[in-house]
């Protein structure tokens, strides 16, 4: 039992509650938000060290031992994601200093983000399926409020669709939980894993597994269930899109990884192959969408879809290289997507338009913004000095070991198209003749670029110094591939 585990959950929750009382004291809210992010990062790093030396840690809420109580389980996978989620919180909060209107800041933007982070971190750390549902609802409720915050016409229209899709997927989640409870009689993940291993996953359980794939796939935006994402992610202001792109779909991916490695891993030729096929189509759809549009937000939104496909391919190959690549790429994707959306926000402040053809030549007046965008684009596509390369390399290696040559081919092809889609923004909008609105109409990008540079520096460090985080990611992958260590940590007493 390790009491440190509950801190990453309590810090944002308490900060959120305190921020509710600080109504219009924006400076205090900003300071507290950043302090909360830093506090989570510090406690999580301590926790990561502990897990790395002593194995998976569990915390039993109220002292009730599992399977009767709710357990919070911290393995390297969950803690790495908690750390990266808080890094995104800090970077986006820094962006809001200049990049969010006072109206939204006055109406509970900061507490909502803290509650969103509570939901995200809770979903990462929980060891109980129904508790996972509750934390999903915590993060979804905050995201509903964030997506509609400001109440413009587009935001209202898109949030109706977003809320409806998520209400339906939550209903399906409860249905899946009900079926699984009826078959196994438990909801604790470790206990579920042990009981399903005993009955060797009959067909009925595989059907429930596929129902979970539909539920989490709707959150993660995989192929037939991605339709809500392009509208919903391009409606809110850039900071909120950056938070969504960095955190929300990633929680769905995390849940798929967790459920299909710890619980439903006995019929990989059905479940994991299905995931592979859907991931391949998701990559194709994402790449097609990314090259089809002339609107920066739409291009980046479809890049989010393509990224989901890349990460899930690692789960489909289901060997140590694939899972390792998937986890590494997931971490990389979180920071780089947040950085790209923040940079797109800064570009729109300068150009006053999101259309590629209507503005060009940002590089001449704003070189820092231009070069940062180039760095982010190269990192996204997986060019060596940055973090995207290492993850994709291992994904490809894992795919070859699993003999999924077609999927690997699709991955390489869509990486090329993803590179083309972002380089098109770079060449047409950032380079070229200067065609911008009059200087007095442009906003000020000072302070908007620095948060993304912070994220890009992190991506660069992850690419150059991969050995530093290698042991942690390797530990995360080995826990995912050997559920015994997870089960033992939770059910040992």
């Amino acid at each position, binding site marked *: 039992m390790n009491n440190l585990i509950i801190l990453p959950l309590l810090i944002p929750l308490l900060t959120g509650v305190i921020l509710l009382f600080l109504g219009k004291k924006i400076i205090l809210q900003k300071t507290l938000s950043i302090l909360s992010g830093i506090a989570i990062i510090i406690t999580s790093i301590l926790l990561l060290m502990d897990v790395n030396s002593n194995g998976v840690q569990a915390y039993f809420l109220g002292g009730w031992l599992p399977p009767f109580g709710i357990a919070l389980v911290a393995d390297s996978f969950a803690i790495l994601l908690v750390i990266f989620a808080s890094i995104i919180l800090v970077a986006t909060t820094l962006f809001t200093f200049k990049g969010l209107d006072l109206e939204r800041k006055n109406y509970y933007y900061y507490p909502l983000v803290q509650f969103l982070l509570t939901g995200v971190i809770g979903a990462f750390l929980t060891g109980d399926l129904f508790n996972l549902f509750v934390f999903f*609802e915590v993060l979804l409720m905050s995201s*509903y409020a964030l997506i509609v915050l400001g109440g413009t016409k587009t935001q*209202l*229209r898109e949030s*109706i669709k977003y809320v*409806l899709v998520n209400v339906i997927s939550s*209903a399906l989640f*409860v249905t899946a939980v*009900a079926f699984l409870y009826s078959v196994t009689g438990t909801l604790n993940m470790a206990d579920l894993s042990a009981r399903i291993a005993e009955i060797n996953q009959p067909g009925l359980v595989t059907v429930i597994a596929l129902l979970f794939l539909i539920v989490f796939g709707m959150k993660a935006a995989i192929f037939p269930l991605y339709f809500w994402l392009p509208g919903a992610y391009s409606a809110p202001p850039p900071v909120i899109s950056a938070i969504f792109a960095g955190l929300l779909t990633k929680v769905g991916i995390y849940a798929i990884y967790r459920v299909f490695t710890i619980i439903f891993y006995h019929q990989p030729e059905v479940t994991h192959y299905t995931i592979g096929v859907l991931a391949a189509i998701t990559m194709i759809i994402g790449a097609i969408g990314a090259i089809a549009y002339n609107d920066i937000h739409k291009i980046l939104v479809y890049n989010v879809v393509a990224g989901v496909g890349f990460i899930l391919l690692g789960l489909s190959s289901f060997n140590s290289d694939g899972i390792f690549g998937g986890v590494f790429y997931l971490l990389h994707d979180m920071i780089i997507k947040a950085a790209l959306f923040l940079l797109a926000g800064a570009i729109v402040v300068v150009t006053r338009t999101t259309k590629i053809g209507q503005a060009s030549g940002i590089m001449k007046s704003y070189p820092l913004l231009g070069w940062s965008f180039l760095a982010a684009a190269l990192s996204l596509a997986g060019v060596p000095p940055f973090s995207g390369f290492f993850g994709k390399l291992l994904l490809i290696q894992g795919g070859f070991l699993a003999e999924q040559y077609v999927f690997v081919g699709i991955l390489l092809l869509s990486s090329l198209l993803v590179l083309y889609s972002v380089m098109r923004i770079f060449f047409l909008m950032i380079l070229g003749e200067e065609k911008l609105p009059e200087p007095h109409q442009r906003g000020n990008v000072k302070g908007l670029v620095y948060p993304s540079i912070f994220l890009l520096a992190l991506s660069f460090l992850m690419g150059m110094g991969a050995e530093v985080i290698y042991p942690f990611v390797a530990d995360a992958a080995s826990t995912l591939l050997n559920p015994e260590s997870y089960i033992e940590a939770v059910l040992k007493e």
Partner: protein
Amino acid sequence: MEILISIVVGILFTVGTYLILSKNITRIIIGTGILSHGVHLLLLTMGGLKQGAAPLLGQEAASYTDPLPQALILTAIVISFGVTSFFLVLAYRTYNVHGTDDMEKMRGLENDE
């Protein structure tokens, strides 16, 4: 008994799906309400409908009904209550701003705003 309730749940799911596929926002919200009723009833049924006393230790009985699904349903009910009230306010606000409650007329156009 479980089979009968399962059929009822199936009907609720069908009605909910049908209403969600309609054009009017209010109908869609009623559909989500019916869908969540179906889900809660399913959760109760899947826990087993065997005879037994209510799960109160004051009632001395040989066996009790399973208390876990009841706790899960209680949680799911308040969550869906919160989401539904938010959804209703959202629909009201959207009606005021867009001037329509027809989903077909709320398509995203390229140069709106």
